[in-house]
């Protein structure tokens, strides 16, 4: 009996679905959109900006430092009178190291808080997740981390290095040092896999041999096998795209296998000052890194930045490349808004090309067409004090080329 009644309820539910299908008289792609993008709320004497970083989860350890340096830039700008006479009010959200959460929070910052720009994201996956959100709402994201290139969204400014400003100079350096063979070790996600594809194309065109390519799952701490393979491959150098905790395990294993910077140097692209502290200087001494900024980078702008950062967050806190790129992002946004004379996104974008800023890393210039920035590549060596000392730089800022169009060997990559 109860089954019969249940069937009636089921029928009722089915009717509801049919009703819902009818209400779904949505508009087709060809129709006029019912709303345009949301515009930022700049009516008061303040302007909101969004800070979207992971404050929890596996990425928190890195992304919190980026949040800190964005806050520093915001405070400095406010102390100097704000942007277009308006104080910046930062609205923080936690991306929680979870990509759909990033998309959710980006949408919230844009449509609820109506921020003028958002600063943040670290991993490529989080950037890919928020990209449609920013494009849909025609809102601005400033992305401060070096990445794998092959992207150019009209609503994202990339203030970290693209591949031709970090990985390619790293390879050029190895080649100049007479290294003929490399072994590739990376975490298993998009950046290392794409970076290694580029490295293999470079190697093929430059007479280098790639002796092996191994990936460890993100967060993996088991490197016995990989280090053994690296050792028996007898490569001239190792190119390391491991991320986070995995580096600790890898370098401990590497050292205990008797490998050193002298016998087989490792070039890392994800180890900055903050990570050196975590891994331990004894395992990293004299190993190489490729970045655009080090705490030791000379210049008055950097001295000021380092001093201000340490004064605010503690003398033992190092500054690193992504932190610097995030700090620069805020100042570049301010310069764009000042030049445009308005917070309107399209006008800010139009004003962006050619803007220069005397950054801690040296002079940077916004490249209008790609919305990346021209920056100097710097190869560094980890010192006994845990800081990284520059051993080579590109001499002048390198024009960003996210699709590597100006490199003949990369023609098959995109």
């Amino acid at each position, binding site marked *: 009996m109860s*089954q019969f009644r*249940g069937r009636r309820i089921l029928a009722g539910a089915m009717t509801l679905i049919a009703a819902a*299908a009818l209400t*779904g008289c949505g508009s087709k792609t060809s129709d006029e959109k019912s709303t345009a993008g949301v515009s930022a709320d700049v009516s008061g004497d303040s302007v909101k900006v969004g800070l979207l970083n992971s404050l929890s989860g596996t990425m928190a350890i890195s992304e919190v430092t980026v949040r800190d340096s964005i806050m520093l830039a915001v405070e400095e700008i406010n102390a100097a009178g704000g942007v277009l006479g308006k104080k910046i009010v930062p609205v923080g959200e936690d991306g929680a190291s979870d990509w759909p959460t990033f998309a959710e929070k980006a949408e919230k910052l844009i449509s609820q808080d109506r921020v003028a720009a958002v600063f943040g994201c670290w991993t*490529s996956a989080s950037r890919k997740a928020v990209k449609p959100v920013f494009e849909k709402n025609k809102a601005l994201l400033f992305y401060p981390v070096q990445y794998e290139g092959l992207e150019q969204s009209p609503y994202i400014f990339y203030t970290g290095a693209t591949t031709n400003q970090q990985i390619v100079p790293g390879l050029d350096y190895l080649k100049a040092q007479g290294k003929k063979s490399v072994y590739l070790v990376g975490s*298993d996600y998009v950046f290392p896999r794409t970076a290694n594809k580029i490295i293999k194309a470079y190697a093929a065109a430059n007479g280098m041999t790639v002796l092996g390519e191994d990936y460890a799952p*993100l967060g993996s701490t088991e490197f016995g096998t990989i280090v053994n393979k690296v050792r028996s491959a007898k490569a001239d150098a190792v190119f390391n795209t491991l991320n986070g905790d995995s580096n600790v395990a890898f370098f401990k294993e590497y050292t205990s296998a008797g490998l050193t910077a002298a016998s087989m140097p490792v070039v890392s692209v994800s180890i900055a000052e903050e990570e050196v502290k975590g891994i331990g200087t004894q395992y990293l001494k004299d190993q190489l890194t490729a970045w655009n900024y080090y705490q030791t980078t000379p210049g008055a702008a950097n001295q000021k930045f380092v001093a201000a950062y340490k004064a605010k967050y503690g003398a033992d806190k190092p500054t690193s490349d992504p932190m610097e790129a995030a700090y620069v992002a805020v100042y570049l946004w301010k310069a764009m808004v000042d030049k445009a004379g308005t917070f309107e996104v399209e006008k800010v974008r139009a004003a962006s090309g050619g803007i220069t800023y005397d950054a801690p890393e040296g002079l940077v210039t916004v490249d209008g067409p790609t919305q990346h920035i021209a920056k100097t590549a710097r190869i560094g060596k980890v010192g006994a004090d845990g800081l990284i000392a520059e051993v080579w730089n590109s001499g002048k800022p390198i024009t960003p080329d996210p699709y590597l169009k100006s490199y003949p060997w990369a023609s098959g990559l995109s």
Partner: protein
Amino acid sequence: MTAAPLVGTDPAAVTGSPPGGRRGRRFDGPARTAAGFALGAALLFAVAPLTLSDFRLSLLAKYLCVAMVAVGIGIAWGRGGMLTLGQGVFFGLGGYAMAMHLKLADAGPGELPDFMQLYGQLDELPLWWRPFASPWIALPATVLLPMAVAFGLGSLVFRRRVRGAYFAILSQALAAAMVILLVGQQGTTGGTNGLTDIQGFFGYDLDDPVNQRMVYFIIAASLLALLALARQLIRSRYGELLVAVRDGEERVRFLGYDPAGVKLVGYVIAAGMAGLAGALFVPAVGIISPALIGIVPSIEFVIGVAVGGRATLLGPVLGAVAVAWARTALSERFPGTWTYLQGLLFVLVVAFLPGGLASLWVLARQRRSDPAGARWWRRARPVDRAENRTEVSAA
């Protein structure tokens, strides 16, 4: 008996008494169910769309997808005693099937999805992608594919009487394996990025708030349909058999039934529900990635169910929505410390309401009918002793 502490001490079973046990009350049975469905429909179809902004409504759509997975877990775990810690796999299969179709539709006929051109350097579509170009294959696949995988795994596992913690570990391993597979095949699966930037949904532009609203209505209707289905199942002879298998598998076997078959059906249904949820999650959120289907999200699905009360019909849904909503609300208000608050919430629920939020209702009823029940907080466990006894043998 390995899982005895896990299941035996969980008084959720108090609400899992066989249907009809409390029949004959003033306002019970079909009338109450019909009223419940009407209330649910009114909330989902009228109150929520009228009071929530587009942004909040799209968040609710996301929560309801999680709730659909929860309905399935309620059947498999709450009713069938199978601790499915790998529902992310089925959620992912449904989600990827849908996303693959939508990506192909976005790209247009004969074209490759954007990420394949970037990472895959492919000249043509991989063979296993091709069937998903057709909506007539992709749409049924979102539900049938997870069910088929569950059927394959279930027939191997239940027949061999793998259960309790071993079953939970096995389902976790499946989730981990699937993530590694997807991440490793970056050129054809999008790797850790997953499938993102989905623009259209069968010709409708997902950027348009009107269409987002439509997706919400489809999800809300699907959830109600799944609830109706789950209710039917629970009330049926099969539903009673499922609870019997949970509480005393050997006894059911001696009565001449095949417990493996009974469990298999529940497991497959739960997988289908997770698959449908994954498929609808894609147009609602616009992304499916390995981060959504691995071990952690699989456990989060179960946490929602546990918080709500696993053995009831509505408990899993309310729990899933409550946990997801709390996550959003807490993280917006306290971006720095919300994870502690969320943890505290779980601890409080598990410590003081081991039967989940649904047991609040039961406790209130006990308190009314039984004066001793008024002091439930002084007792170690608010459990019907007789029913608890049968539970211990469940594992």
